[in-house]
């Protein structure tokens, strides 16, 4: 080429701009790992569809996923398109708000076959995201990355598709609610009941307060350089406790305690009542 090549990026269409970041729920990760573990012997990796929604600020919220059978050889890739559509229709019946937002694959990095698959998904939805879940832990760490692709064209000729990584938010609030201890270990003997949960939360709070005490002590004694931001944060937190006079607080406290005691009393009475009623019902004999 005599003229200097000009790389043209497609101008952002007015319909929708490509997603700028992605958020993945824990259930998607679990599904991907589970399907990887169950993959057929000859497959190296698994691919599947991602479902979710596109938030107005450009974030893609990935909420669900299902695996799609595919076969891959050196030069060609085949996906079971019917299966994909069937599963999508079934999922739509349950939750019509979850639409296709992209696809996932296990393995590290983006391979050649991925471009073809990505092209297929681009026909399903605009700007699909591609999520790679590195189940092989190739770099010794869990790497989950999300990409979007943009087409690079030289003049009129389509050269390549460039996969750009987009920031991924893996906060997994739902998983936190369920409790990470349950999801972390390979076997949990029994689900913690509420009292045990309270105990562990209170212990964590206690540890936090201890740390803050230690930090403040260290700063006062000059062992640690004071950091204004942390100091301000601590004073904000302490000030956020409502200021009540001791009398008002005591009254409030006693009222609540009495309410709770009344409830416990009511429930014990009810229990006694139902056991008596049951004895009467089955033991009564007129004959």
């Amino acid at each position, binding site marked *: 080429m005599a003229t200097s090549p000009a790389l043209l990026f497609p101008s952002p269409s007015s319909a929708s701009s490509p997603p700028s970041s992605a958020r993945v*729920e*824990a*259930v998607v*990760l*679990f599904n991907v*790992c*589970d399907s*990887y573990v*169950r*993959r057929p012997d000859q497959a190296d990796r698994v691919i599947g569809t991602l479902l979710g929604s596109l938030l107005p600020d450009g974030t893609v919220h990935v*909420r669900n996923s299902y695996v799609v059978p595919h076969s891959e050889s050196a030069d060609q890739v085949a996906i079971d398109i019917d*299966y994909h559509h*069937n599963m999508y229709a*079934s999922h739509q*019946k*349950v939750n019509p708000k979850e639409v296709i937002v992209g696809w996932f694959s296990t393995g590290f990095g983006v391979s050649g076959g991925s471009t073809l698959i990505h092209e297929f998904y681009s026909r399903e939805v605009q700007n699909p995201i591609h999520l790679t879940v590195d*189940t092989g*832990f190739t770099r010794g760490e*869990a790497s*989950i990355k999300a990409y979007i692709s943009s087409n690079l064209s030289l003049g009129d000729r389509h050269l390549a598709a460039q996969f750009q990584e987009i920031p991924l938010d893996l906060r*997994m*609030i*739902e*998983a*936190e*609610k*369920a*409790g*990470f201890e*349950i*999801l*972390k270990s390979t*076997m949990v003997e029994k*689900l913690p*009941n509420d*009292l045990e*949960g*309270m105990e562990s*939360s*209170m212990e*964590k*709070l206690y*540890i*936090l307060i201890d740390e803050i005490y230690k930090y403040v002590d260290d700063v006062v004694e000059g062992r640690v350089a004071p950091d204004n931001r942390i100091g301000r944060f601590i004073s904000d937190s302490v000030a956020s406790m409502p200021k009540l006079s001791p009398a008002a*607080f005591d009254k409030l*406290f006693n009222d*609540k305690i009495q309410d709770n005691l009344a*409830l*416990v009393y009511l*429930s*014990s009475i*009810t229990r006694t009542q*139902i056991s008596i*009623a*049951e004895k009467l*019902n*089955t*033991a*009564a004999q*007129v004959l």
Partner: protein
Amino acid sequence: MANRKGLPKPFLCLALVILYAAAPGGMRSFLQAVSTVTEEAPTPLRVVQMEGLAVLKIIKHCEEFAPALVTGQLLGLDVGSVLEVTNCFPFPIREEDDEADADGANYQLEMMRCLREVNVDNNTIGWYQSCLLGSFQTVELIETFMNYQESIRRCVCIVYYPSRSSQGVLALKALKLTDSFMDLYRNNGLTGEKLREKKLSWVDIFEEIPIKVSNSALVSAFMKELEPESPVTQCDFDRLKLSTAPFMERNLEFLIGCMDDLSSEQNKFQYYYRNLSRQQSQQQAWLQKRRQENMARKAAGEEPLPEEDPSNPIFKPIPEPSRLEGYLVTNQISSYCNHINGVAGQNFSRLYLMKALHEE
């Protein structure tokens, strides 16, 4: 050498003879074992083992549609005394149409077929449902259990409470009907005497099975990596929340409603007993009259009339109302009481914690 070579043989023969002598007893017991393996009772279900994936999916589905109640199917394996739940899929919410039944069945078949293609365990082992504040013990639940029991040997129902999960407790329960209750229900024997015979009280209808959670090594490795650095999680925030009043209020409302139901059930029984005793006194009176007539007839030399008269309406047996409703209502009441107790206990700890913090 010859001796040594010769020795094993008679020894072996002796051993074999002994074996064969013992064999009839042994063989018989082996045959017995083989023949009775189909008749022996299945090992009792002791634990339900769920995969983290199934737990998360159930939570996601129930939370998304709260406060509507949703259901879904559980898939997994039945291994000895452990029922493993490896996957699940949700059911779409059905409007009450006639055609929805066929649709529902189609959806189920379609999902099972698709999941089988990707090597997911294709066994139905039960279903899950979300429920609001513990009022899931209904007749429909029992009927669904009986329907499932006809096709699969062991099935379990997993109940999830989204309202309690907002308080930081993973509220999942695995239930199944006790065998004795199922026998009685099948034979329509929910009358007073039969229940007394079997010593079946309302506690024995549902059996709660402990849940274990297991995860594959791969996913637990991922989770360990991705666990956030912060020492407290959303779970802890939820647990230390002080405002539980709306939850308690609703629980109490439901409790009051259930007490009303219970008292109406008891009224039904009282009515039945009153009718029964009135009928009996009527029968006695009629019998007396008959006997007098008979004596008069005998004196007159005529045939005595029979002492029974099935066509008389006072001899019609009054059906005893089923105690099932009463038992179910009692179960509901007890679960509300348990909830209230649990939350009140937590409230106590939280209040004392607040007091300690305030004094500092």
